[in-house]
């Protein structure tokens, strides 16, 4: 047979959009033509495979932290009752907005660094990139550290609302994380293309953000 079904007809047949007459003619042809029968079967298999793809794909683990940070930034938490009015006048709002900003900066920093690492294809490219990566990382990190410093200053205002025992626990935990961050930073600056190191450092930063968030919520009900 030299007259085969057109590609459009094959697709319309699979999609069930041919008229009854055209459908009957196409099916009759496919039964008699091995080439068209094969093409039809392969097209059906492709469509079937597409339909059978998993309807869920796990997003990156850190995505929720990012979303949460953005959502929290859209809310403003007020200081607990009893906080001095002066504080409110100066606009010393509690954590969420700056926490979110810190978290977003963190995400951008880790994404930019990891993105460069994942996309590097040649040693010459890698040699050219670390300089730029380090600059980008340091810029983001500086902004992150400034935000965290401000957060800690704001947390000072919550001291009266947290027990001394709790404060000790919090400071101890933060000190542990800070030491880990310092060690990770130093290592990453020596080896900025190290993807595992980047992920580990990002994990420590996330822990710090998360701990600060939880501490501020200790006083809320």
């Amino acid at each position, binding site marked *: 047979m030299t007259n085969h079904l057109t*590609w459009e007809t094959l697709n319309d047949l699979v999609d069930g959009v041919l008229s009854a007459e055209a459908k009957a003619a196409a099916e009759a042809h496919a039964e008699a033509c091995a080439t068209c029968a094969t093409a039809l079967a392969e097209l059906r298999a492709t469509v079937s495979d597409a339909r059978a793809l998993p309807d*869920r794909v796990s*997003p990156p683990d850190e995505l929720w932290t990012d979303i949460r940070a953005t959502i929290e930034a859209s809310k403003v938490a007020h200081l607990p009752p009893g906080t001095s009015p002066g504080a409110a006048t100066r606009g010393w709002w509690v954590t969420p907005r700056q926490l979110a900003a810190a978290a977003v900066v963190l995400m951008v920093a880790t994404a930019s660094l990891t993105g460069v690492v994942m996309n590097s294809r040649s040693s010459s490219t890698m040699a050219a990139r670390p300089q730029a990566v380090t600059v980008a990382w340091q810029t983001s990190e500086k902004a992150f550290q400034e935000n965290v410093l401000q957060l800690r200053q704001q947390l000072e205002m919550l001291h009266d609302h947290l027990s001394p025992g709790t404060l000790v626990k919090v400071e101890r935990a933060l000190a542990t994380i800070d030491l880990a961050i310092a060690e990770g930073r130093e290592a990453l600056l020596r080896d900025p293309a190290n993807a595992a190191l980047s992920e580990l450092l990002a994990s420590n930063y996330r822990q710090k953000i998360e701990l600060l968030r939880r501490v501020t919520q200790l006083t809320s009900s």
Partner: protein
Amino acid sequence: MTDSQAASATDDVAALVALAARGDVNAFERLYARSAGRVYAVCVRMTGDPQRAKEYTHDAFVRAWERLSTFRGEAAFETWMHRLAVNVVLTATRGDRRREARLVPTPDEKMAETAAFGRPDRDVETRIDLERAIAALPARAREVFVLHDVEGYRHEEIADRLELQASSVRAQLHRARQLIMRMLNR
């Protein structure tokens, strides 16, 4: 799932939506846990780019948070989120219609791995190749293919969403399938 379990799950989602609409972020996190896989799947397949998919998934959930009070429960929450995500992707890509056709698959290990470990599947190798082939399609063809063959939208619905003629949707779909089959050596 039995009828009562399904009913209970629906009530539970309604409760979570109600809580989240009042500002309960933990409740929203639970809604995220239930629907993020579905949303990310459609974003990553429509864009072929895990990084953009992550951004669009982020935007979809932030938008959902802002509009929770408009969710009336007439559809499943996941369906509502899915529609929202498709809107986010199509709005973002509306200004980016001209792209070079990419006939050579660009292996994206991360996306393939993510797709591969999403859920147990009967034919892992076929699925990874197919995901890669979809990612390598030209943008418009990919959008049409994903919406029709993966997500089950009808030609008319796709035409409406993409602001195309139905005949153009058909043409893009046929082209997408042809390209995919070539890439899969079928």
